[in-house]
């Protein structure tokens, strides 16, 4: 008996197995195929049908279950009206979406229609600008305003996409818990000190978290710096950081450290249990407040099933700038890899401006930018959506400290964001002080390529 022979056979077996282990088709892709293959109702409007050739478009977006359901319904509606168009769709959570997009960009195989946020300049080489489709009438923009078009365009006027809706950030809270703990409900002029005190009090009285989960990057960097006089996180032209003193970053980091230590804010392990807006701790009743993009408030409140309210984030000083502004929540873009960009543009125009479609979408991506859609939605608004409308109006009227809003992020934003999250975790773990954390992050961000 020779063990060397056995050894060789085993090695060969492992080689074979490792080959089979490489299966490029993931189950979700299979599922999506199945879903898209489901028969759509064919309308027998035979006049145009026969001449049109079949077109398959691929589309992807990120979001919550609520958004997935609504978007799929609109896609199916569109396919039933245009039987020659087939749309294969994929949906992801936010991080998964951009991971997938990165690989598709490298493979020159980006979805025909894809969702984008303020980081669109990073992907500019993959975006088919819509200007020519607007000029030739494929996309009718008469129903919206110049200003709403501009929030989805770069500085040179290249129309990157059509806005899916406008939104802003805010804090959703449970008024019943505030009442129970004997804390006054927040007003639009509340401060970070009041916020921290409320968190601690709620934890003390109820034993739950005061706050569920910040978007640390948005709150601790973009918002906080915007609240300091005359500063912005990036310069208006994205040529570098828009502030000089790293100490401006310290208060938020310090607050995060203190709140976790007190048990009023979830630690990293608990935060990791929140996978989606639908199982946010505010929804499950384990927290009294959470950070939310206004367009997601409806999904949040519906998941919670009890009354929630929406208020702007705390300020540095009661009479200081709010640091937030109304923005394009996201847009739909056409990819430059697309073989049918005109058809993709047509779908986008339909998606953003058709009234029937938007009654299904129900402003879940933000307040629509086409006026006819807005008017049509008005009578259908439920109390949660009305709160969002009121809130966006409120933010639109808050003092921003001057007209210095930059809707576009530089390409190094993802790196900065990852570094910030990494350092804040270190600070919370006690490996560094808030001051060291802020200093190290500032030096990192300042040394990036802009």
């Amino acid at each position: 008996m020779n063990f060397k022979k056995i050894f060789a056979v085993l090695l060969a077996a492992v080689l074979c197995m490792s080959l089979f282990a490489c299966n490029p088709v993931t189950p979700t892709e299979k599922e999506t195929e199945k879903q898209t293959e489901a028969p759509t109702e064919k309308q027998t409007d035979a006049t145009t049908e026969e001449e049109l050739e079949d077109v398959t478009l691929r589309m992807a977006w990120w979001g919550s279950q609520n958004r997935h359901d609504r978007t799929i319904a609109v896609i199916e509606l569109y396919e039933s009206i245009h039987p020659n168009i087939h749309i294969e769709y994929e949906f992801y959570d936010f991080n998964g979406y951009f991971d997938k997009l990165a690989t598709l960009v490298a493979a020159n195989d980006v979805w025909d229609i894809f969702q984008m946020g303020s980081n669109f300049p990073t992907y500019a080489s993959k975006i088919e600008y819509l200007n020519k489709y607007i000029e030739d009438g494929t996309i009718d923009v008469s129903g919206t305003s110049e200003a709403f078009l501009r929030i989805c365009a770069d500085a040179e006027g290249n129309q990157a996409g059509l806005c899916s809706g406008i939104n802003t950030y805010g804090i959703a809270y449970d008024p019943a818990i505030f009442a129970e703990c004997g804390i006054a409900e927040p007003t639009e002029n509340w401060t970070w000190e009041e916020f921290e005190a409320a968190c601690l009090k709620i934890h003390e009285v109820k034993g739950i978290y005061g706050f569920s989960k910040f978007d640390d990057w948005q709150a601790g960097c973009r918002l906080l710096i915007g609240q300091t006089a005359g500063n912005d996180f990036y310069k208006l032209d994205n040529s570098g950081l828009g502030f000089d003193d790293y100490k401006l970053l310290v208060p938020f980091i310090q607050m995060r450290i203190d709140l976790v230590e007190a048990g009023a804010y979830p630690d990293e392990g608990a935060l990791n249990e929140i996978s989606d807006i639908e199982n946010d701790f505010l929804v499950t009743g384990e927290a009294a407040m959470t950070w939310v993009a206004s367009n997601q408030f409806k999904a949040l409140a519906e998941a919670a099933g009890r009354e929630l309210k929406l208020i702007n984030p705390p300020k540095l000083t009661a009479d200081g700038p709010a640091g937030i502004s109304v923005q394009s929540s996201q847009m739909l873009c056409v990819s430059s890899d697309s073989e049918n960009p005109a058809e993709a543009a047509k779908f986008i125009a339909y998606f953003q401006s058709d009234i029937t479609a938007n009654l299904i979408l129900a402003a879940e991506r933000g307040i629509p930018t086409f006026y006819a859609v807005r008017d049509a939605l008005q009578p259908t608004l439920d109390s949660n959506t009305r709160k969002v409308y009121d809130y966006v109006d409120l933010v639109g009227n808050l003092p921003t400290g001057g007209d210095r809003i930059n809707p576009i992020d530089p390409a190094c934003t993802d790196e900065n964001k990852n570094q910030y999250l990494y350092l804040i975790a270190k600070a919370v773990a006690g490996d560094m002080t808030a001051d060291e954390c802020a200093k190290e992050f500032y030096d990192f961000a300042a040394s990036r390529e802009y």
Partner: protein
Amino acid sequence: MSKENIKTLNRKKSGQSGWSRFINNNNTVGYTFLAPFIIGFFAFTLIPMGTSLFYSFTNFNMIDKMDFVGFQNYIDLFNDERFTNSLWVTVQYVFLSVPLKLAFALLIAFVLTRPSKLVSFYRSLYYLPSLIGGSVAVALVWKQIFARKGLINMNLIAMGLDTVNWFGNGDIAKWPIILMTVWQFGSSMLIFAAGLKEIPGTYYEAAKIDGANGWQMFFRITLPCLSPIILFNLVMQLISSFMVFTQAYVITSGGPNDATMYYALYVYKVGINERRMGYASAMSWVMLIIMGLATFLVFKTSKHWVFDESAES
């Protein structure tokens, strides 16, 4: 028969045409059966490896940037504290999980060599976790089991004990992940079981006659005879442990405070998430070197502890 005649005869046998000679040729048959592997090897292993080696000398960002930067990526690695940390936690993970897994696999395999009708049933049962082990679904289940209000903590409360903050504490977070790896001992166990069967029963009989007890037989006969199999399992597990990804990605996302930010996960984060593909490629090549070194060391030391029967006799 003349040579000419033999040739014509052969041509007749093989159907006379060039095509059928080609199709019946041993080499053609061989390469045809090899083709799936060779194509897969080139498309999914060799070519990607080549491109990643090329990328590792560039600042490729997957979108529009690709300049040659020489060894800059490799130099930057040594100034990256997250990289050093990921290397450290991965080595820690390998050193904890591999011996535990192998010991467990050997123990179960040893127990299951007893002549009993239920042995094959039990063997299948213990192999089950390995079948489903690497999947995302099991990782999600694991995440729930160890959650703040998961199965384990609920039982701890029921027993009147304090709950454990499994994924919130950097010192503890690695244990559920190691446990999950150890739990998937099935394939090592099967290989051990096969090896155990190969040990001749006469050795044990002779030992028994000489008055050896169970422990002595295990350490003097079983372990030495099994050492080539142990070497094989050790090398395979070493390599797969260095590449730990799914569990950490799904369960902890690398947290808390990078306590489970394993090497492959960090490569993914940098490469896909931050789109610094050049840097991530450099990291992958460093990993290849590290894994190669580890394997080399194991082979080098194996001379001293692997018992080769054919060499002895």
